[in-house]
């Protein structure tokens, strides 16, 4: 089943066409990779999906509803969540608070609930804490709930950001270079983790990635961008051998490395 369907999506910045008539379909519970050289429009693509940019033309259907023009906070409610290329945690909040902010969309209490200490609010809050605890455990960070986010080492910050994104219980998770700056061991762990997530939580994942080893190993399908245009799409094996991709993006040297 198609979870996300993008038709003829175009985004311009003044005269620059950042995304040019994209047509992409993302299947439910798949790991869909987006690759392309720097400046190809990958992160812009994410920003359009999450509502930070509004595409000038085209349609984005998510779970059968159009999400074009919705504000970022509305889109999270629909079930899309993301992480950032350069980690963007709430640095002076604790790990637990970071994850609990991620759970915000499921909290219904208003202004007076917490002031009056209503039972409903207290129970809801307790549930949020429990979910945050569980998620931190899921990303192997139990026992570090009260540490400020900025004091974590790089790898743990990445995982904390992942936990925060999962807290909104999304149907679709957008990961922007989750393995950037990681050593081979950490990269392998992250790959396992992403596959687990898809398997255990049944989440659909769109992945921007530069490390070809990761892309080729875990993707179900790969889309290649260049200058805001989709130049190829297919199974990892097909992309690996696609002439256009090799010429436009991988280059001969890197193509050899990718094999």
């Amino acid at each position, binding site marked *: 089943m198609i979870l996300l369907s993008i038709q003829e999506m175009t985004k311009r910045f003044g005269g620059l066409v950042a995304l040019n008539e994209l047509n992409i379909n993302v299947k439910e519970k798949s790991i869909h990779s987006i690759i392309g050289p720097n400046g190809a429009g990958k992160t812009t693509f994410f920003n359009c999906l*999450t509502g*930070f940019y509004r595409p000038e033309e085209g349609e984005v259907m998510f779970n059968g509803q159009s999400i074009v023009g919705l*504000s*970022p*906070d509305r889109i*999270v*409610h629909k079930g899309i*969540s*993301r992480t*950032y290329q350069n980690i*963007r*945690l*709430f*640095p*002076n*909040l*604790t790990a637990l*608070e970071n994850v*609990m*902010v*991620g759970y*915000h*969309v499921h*909290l219904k*209490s208003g*202004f007076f*609930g*917490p*002031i009056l*200490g209503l039972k409903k*609010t207290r129970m809801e*809050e307790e549930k*949020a804490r429990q979910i945050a605890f569980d998620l931190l455990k899921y990303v*192997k960070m139990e026992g570090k709930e*009260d*540490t*400020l986010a*900025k*004091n*974590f*080492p*790089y*790898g*743990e910050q990445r995982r904390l950001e992942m936990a*925060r994104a999962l807290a*909104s219980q999304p149907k679709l998770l957008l990961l922007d270079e989750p393995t950037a700056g990681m050593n081979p061991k*950490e990269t392998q*762990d992250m790959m396992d983790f992403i596959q687990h997530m898809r398997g255990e939580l049944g989440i659909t994942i769109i992945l921007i990635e530069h490390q070809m080893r990761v892309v080729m190993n875990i993707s179900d399908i790969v889309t290649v961008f260049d200058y805001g245009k989709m130049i190829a799409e297919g199974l990892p094996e097909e992309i690996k051998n696609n002439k256009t991709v090799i010429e436009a993006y991988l280059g001969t040297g890197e193509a050899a490395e990718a094999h």
Partner: protein
Amino acid sequence: MTKAQSLWNQGVKIGAIGGVSVLIISLIGMVESFGKRDIIAGVLPMGVAIALIISILAAYMAAKKTPISDKSIQFANAVVSGLVISGFLAAFVMIGRSFNIREMLVGASPVLYSILTGGVAGAGGIFLLLLTGLLCGAFAGILYMLRDLPRRLTVNALLTIFILGLLQELILPILKAWDVGMINYLAGLFYTLNGLTPVGAILSVVIFCILYLLWNANQGAIKSKYAALPKEARKKSQIAALIVLAVILIVLPQFLGLFLSEVITIVGLYVLLGLGLNIVVGYAGLLDLGYVAFFAIGSYVVALLTSPQIFAFGLNFWQALPIAVICGILAGVMLGIPVLKMRGDYLAIATLGFGEIIRILVLSDFLRPWLGGAQGIGSIPNPNLFGFQMVKPQHIYYLLLAGIILVIFISLRLKKSKIGRAWMAMREDEDVAQAMGINLVATKLLAFATGAGFSALSGAIFASKIGSVYPHSFNVFISINVVCIVIIGGIGSLPGIVVGAAVLMGLPELLREFAEYRMFVYGVALVIVMLLRPEGLLPEARHKMEFHDETEAGAKTVA
């Protein structure tokens, strides 16, 4: 540059900084006007005490910054910087006596020269001044070489004298209020009408030293005993401490005279304002410099509804209070809407303008028939609680206390809720907060509205306390005071705000001489706090945590 020269560099440099500082506070008249009040009666005027503190501090820094750890050089450096400071002053006195510089520098008066030279005329005075500088330097040098405990003891003992002398107007009336023979005798032993008695100063040093040494010897044992207590017992002792605090707060006005009660209500009003601004600045990270506007709105609503002048609605205070708070909240939302998209500096400027707009509107002739213009609105009745007229400041104190407790309660509850987290997330990173599903518009407006409501509450109490409102009561300095309270007390920390309000609003009331230099002192205090203690005087636990965590986190590795 030779090595010998560089050794003395710090002494001369820091001495020059200290000299200029003392010169500045002398020239703006602080030494002279503070000279009228004595720390120790007949021995040490406050102005001189401040000059001495700066000199000793500078000389101490000079010893500390000496590039090599040779004790004699460090000592010599301290002496050099002390001499440089007094040299600056001596040169100033000599120039001032030979030429007329008063036309340019109003503060350069003969009285100042006389204070600086210890009242001795001619060359003898200059010599005395230089000798004092030398002694300050030598004292600082010795202080630097002392071991840790004696040094702390000396510094704290001297500070005790200074603070006891400074707070005379706080302590003396409280002692006298008892009017018991024994306490009257004690008060007479320690205090004259102008500063501590020399005997009192010596006695307080002795008492302080004994207490300090006792605490120092037993501190470890007490702390470990407390830590060894089971969790429940610790909780019990915390509750007991809270009860003691509550009792003190409730009986406090009985021991404060009229003047001190007046001071404490002013502090209370600013605590309320600070708590409200803390929501906006501390939690939500929106720098609001027009905060006085809501204070004014709260005041004017109460004035219009309860005063027989202008409209004569004839409401009582309790009926007007909720309306004032609601008007404040609405005004908060109205300010919030146009500045929704602004961040940081731009927001500060826009809100600053809003604060001024409200004041100027109230002042305008156009609105005079409704708001009273520059004459303001008078004869606002006092609050009446079940037939009891709250006339005295002591009565208003309880009203404020109730308000503060309510606001602290709401702040704490909100902070730990979904809304508090949304505010803090927005403060940390607005875009990401939105990407987490937080509705920025609603969250921001809620922060503005909550803060404005608290401010209006403070304003309402202010109006009924004073009995009249004037546009001039609501100038931009109130906003600045409140921002200073929040920053110096510790952003986001509720106890910090209480301490900040007490220090920044209470002290200047107790030291009337300060009034003129209030903004100067705030500026200096802000700079010092930002340099030495950027987290504020009494920071939130979270900020303390930052320092602990860094060392722990450094050891952690990626799994």
